[in-house]
């Protein structure tokens, strides 16, 4: 049977002697970066929606442009009460 001294010597061999050097710096650095960009995810989260709005405006403008080009060929005329207008014309 081993004595307690023997056990101590074994435990000393496996005892944690502290984190490796540089770990703290890495963790702190990582936490620092995360803190620096923390507002960005909120904006990034809205980016797709903002892009969608821009695209909606863009395609609406393009469609309106197409309508304008059609309008250059098709000139709408407001409907008139033709019977009244004609009768007025012929009874002047």
């Amino acid at each position: 049977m081993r004595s307690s001294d023997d056990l101590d010597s074994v435990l000393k061999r496996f005892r944690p002697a502290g984190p490796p050097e540089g770990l703290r710096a890495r963790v702190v650095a990582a936490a620092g970066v995360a803190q620096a960009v923390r507002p960005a995810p909120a904006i990034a989260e809205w980016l797709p929606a903002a892009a969608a709005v821009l695209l909606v405006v863009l395609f609406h403008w393009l469609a309106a442009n197409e309508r304008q080009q059609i309008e250059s060929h098709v000139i709408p005329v407001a409907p008139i009460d033709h019977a009244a207008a004609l009768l007025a014309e012929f009874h002047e």
Partner: protein
Amino acid sequence: MTAAESRPLVRPQFAKGSALALAVLLPILAYTIWDYIEMRRFRSRIEAIAVRGEPITIQGPFKMSADAGDADRFYRAAGALAMSFTSGQPSRAALALYSSGDLPAEAIDAARAVVARYGEALSLADRAANLPFEGFKPGTTFNYLIASLNDVARLCDLRARLAVLDGRADAAIDSLYTQARLKRTAIQFLAQSQMSLSTVVERTRPSPATMQKLSNALNDLDRDDYLKTDFIRLRAQAVDSSQMPLSSGLFVIRNTASPPPWEVHRYTRALDTFAEIIAAVERPEPARIGAVLAVGRFPEVLPQSTERSRENLEGFVHARVRSVAIIRASRVLVAIERFRRDHDERLPSDLGELAPAYIGRLPLDPYTGQAMRYRPLEHGYTVYSVGPNGLDDGGEKSPVETRELSRRDRDYWKKWDDAGVRVQ
């Protein structure tokens, strides 16, 4: 754990709000892209029509001569004045007389009252008949006028029948002349004038001068591009009914909503169908009839095409070609009658005797591309086209025969047999 470590990378309210906004925006974006694509396709079809130099819309602005402007005003006024023709009680009686093919004695007074009541409309149509017609000016409600001018044409027919009863042959022909000239304004009038023309020449002897005048009016109607003109006009009506364009710029909203993309899609498809049909009807007779029927569908945006699109296309084309066959037969009829006046009431043995003294060139059967058929009868003759069935069914039937056949067989009109005129 520190306070900084407990914070999430994205704040929940932002994540939730932006996802919601995106969910709302994506369908709007899809709609806007679709709208753009459809408008672009529609615009390309419109520009293709413009490149061909064809009218895009009925309301398109165009210049016209002063006389044509007067014809436009007179016809519009006549249409407006005749608007109540089919709704009034006397007119219903007149229409019954009209459809019966003859004027029973007891109804003649009612018919005279109707003609007198719409005398102003008839007078305006008479004035317009002697003027060139180039179309209606923008701003007119074209579809309503079509229906009203059709009524004016019926009134002309009724007036001609009354003139026959009074023995005023030239007045009857003059009324048919006005009716023939009215056909310049519309796509499809009821092809009824041949019935009254037969009646007039059976019972009276009009002067050669008035017959020549009527002949000239019929010649003007006998145009080779009739189907093309019809479909171009139908297409223009379709473009008008699309109510495009309605928004001329970004965030500029007019008093009506712009048609949604699925509607624009329908109209674009209709324009494609029109393009196919118009290419088909540009072929020479009689091949064009088969070519247009091979398209197999009517443009879907028109009232005629709600159902049974193929059947409606056939109905439209056959009705139109038959009406042209009747116009051509009427031209031959006028030539035969002028021949008879000059030859002691002798009928020509064949139509070759008529050209070139009484008719410049013999018109052809639109269904065969050959000469119109001519068959002397015991007390008269018939001039006809073999019609859509391509068979010689013995010529145009008398109104009595037609009524009897229609009574026996409700679908008789679908048989599309011979089309022409018959004088007894």
